[in-house]
């Protein structure tokens, strides 16, 4: 690994000041599990690395007054996976962190690091898209902005973050009354692998069996995580039956744009997107999947 100049920032202001000074020659380091690998391979060669580990404001998981959840950017995957606050919000949220890599990596990797790394096969983004989360970003020189999770990613390993910005936390709004979350990660190879495809669904059903709330996030199905709005629109207000779910899930084929890789061809992943979208919605609706 090429060496570099390192500073451990003591506060958000200090981190942003260092970032402003070095601009695109600087990288923040959170858990390091992705950045160290990229640096070892020479794919990223920052002149300056700014450590975020000492910044208390970036830590912690708390329920908000309205019943939502706020997760500090430096929260490790394992901390969120084992958080009573996250479990109380929706059990499927911490459980979705429990399928990432291995416990050892989850002890090091952070939620903020995961998001800015912007690997489209990561697990938290589809879950956070389904939960309508926003990324709370602070700017050098003051100011902040809230970016909807689904608008955060722009391309393979690229986000909307400017070179004067830092992710402070992820804010998850309260779960709509009666809605539930499910996340399915299709892993045909090994349990510690990246998803071949993954689907997160938040679903609410009214007393007549009609869909009153639906949001769908997809992982590993394009150069960025995706939201499957076409499938949501097809089901919102409709009775949830084997047939209606099957018909709506088929629309996901036109939402995705997968890449051929070692986990399967684009055609295979497109078909698996349909299958797992149908199964995930059906599991929440209490309906048997046809696929």
């Amino acid at each position, binding site marked *: *690994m090429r*060496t*570099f*100049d*390192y500073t451990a920032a003591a506060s958000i202001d200090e981190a942003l000041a260092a970032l402003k000074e070095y601009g695109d020659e600087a990288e923040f380091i959170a858990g*390091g599990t992705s950045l160290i690998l990229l640096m070892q391979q020479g794919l990223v060669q920052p002149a300056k690395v700014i450590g975020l580990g000492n910044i208390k404001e970036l830590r912690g998981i708390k329920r908000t007054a309205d019943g939502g959840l706020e997760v500090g950017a430096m929260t490790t995957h394992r901390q969120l996976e084992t958080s009573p606050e996250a479990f109380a919000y929706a059990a499927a949220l911490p459980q979705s962190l429990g399928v990432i890599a*291995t416990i050892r990596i989850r*002890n090091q990797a952070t939620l903020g690091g995961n998001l800015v790394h912007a690997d489209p096969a990561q697990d938290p983004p589809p879950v956070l898209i389904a939960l309508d989360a926003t990324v709370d970003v602070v700017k050098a020189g003051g100011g902040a902005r809230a970016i909807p999770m689904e608008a955060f990613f722009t391309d393979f390993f690229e986000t909307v973050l400017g070179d004067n910005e830092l992710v402070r936390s992820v804010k998850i709004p309260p779960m709509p009354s009666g809605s539930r979350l499910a996340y399915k990660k299709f892993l045909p190879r090994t349990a510690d692998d990246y998803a071949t495809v993954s689907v997160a669904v938040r679903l609410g059903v009214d007393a007549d069996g009609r869909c009153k709330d639906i949001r769908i996030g997809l992982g590993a199905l394009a150069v960025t995580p995706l939201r499957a709005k076409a499938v949501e629109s097809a089901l919102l207000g409709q009775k949830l039956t084997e047939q209606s779910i099957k018909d709506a899930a088929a629309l996901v084929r036109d939402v995705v744009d997968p890449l051929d890789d070692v986990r399967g061809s684009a055609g295979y992943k497109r078909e698996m997107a349909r299958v797992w979208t149908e199964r995930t919605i059906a599991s929440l609706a209490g309906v048997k999947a046809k696929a």
Partner: protein
Amino acid sequence: MHFRPVSVHQISFELNGKTVERSVGPEVLMADLLRDDIGLTGTKIGCSIGVCGACSILVDGTLMSGCLLPAIMVDGRSVTTIEGIAPSEDELSPLQDAFIRKGGFQCGICTSGQIIAATALLAQNAKPTREEIKEWMMGNLCRCTGYYKIIDSIEAAAGIERANV
């Protein structure tokens, strides 16, 4: 290419109960510091990309990959390696003892990491189920594929006896 400044850091941390002070560049990884500088070669390097678990260490009791952890990040913290697991020179930890008794290793390259990972497991779950052991140990690969004996060893160290062993 313009001049790139390079920082050097004085770090102080507790290693297996003793204070260690070192001067390190920010690019030095914990697995390399332990092996090449400090001379504790019990921590092995297998894949170097955080997958195999051979370089498992405990940082403030938390299981981590030494190959992905810059040494500067352990400043002020407490690190335990395989060399610090035994209670004394003449005594093995229950896990070390069980790995020997139950044949929990073949070639031995993964064994330090297996025992460190299992130590972290038993510290927070004294009587894990076989499924919990499998889930926890998933990140420690054994290329001799001696997984059953490894799980048996961890159960034995936890005082879990199985009738059919």
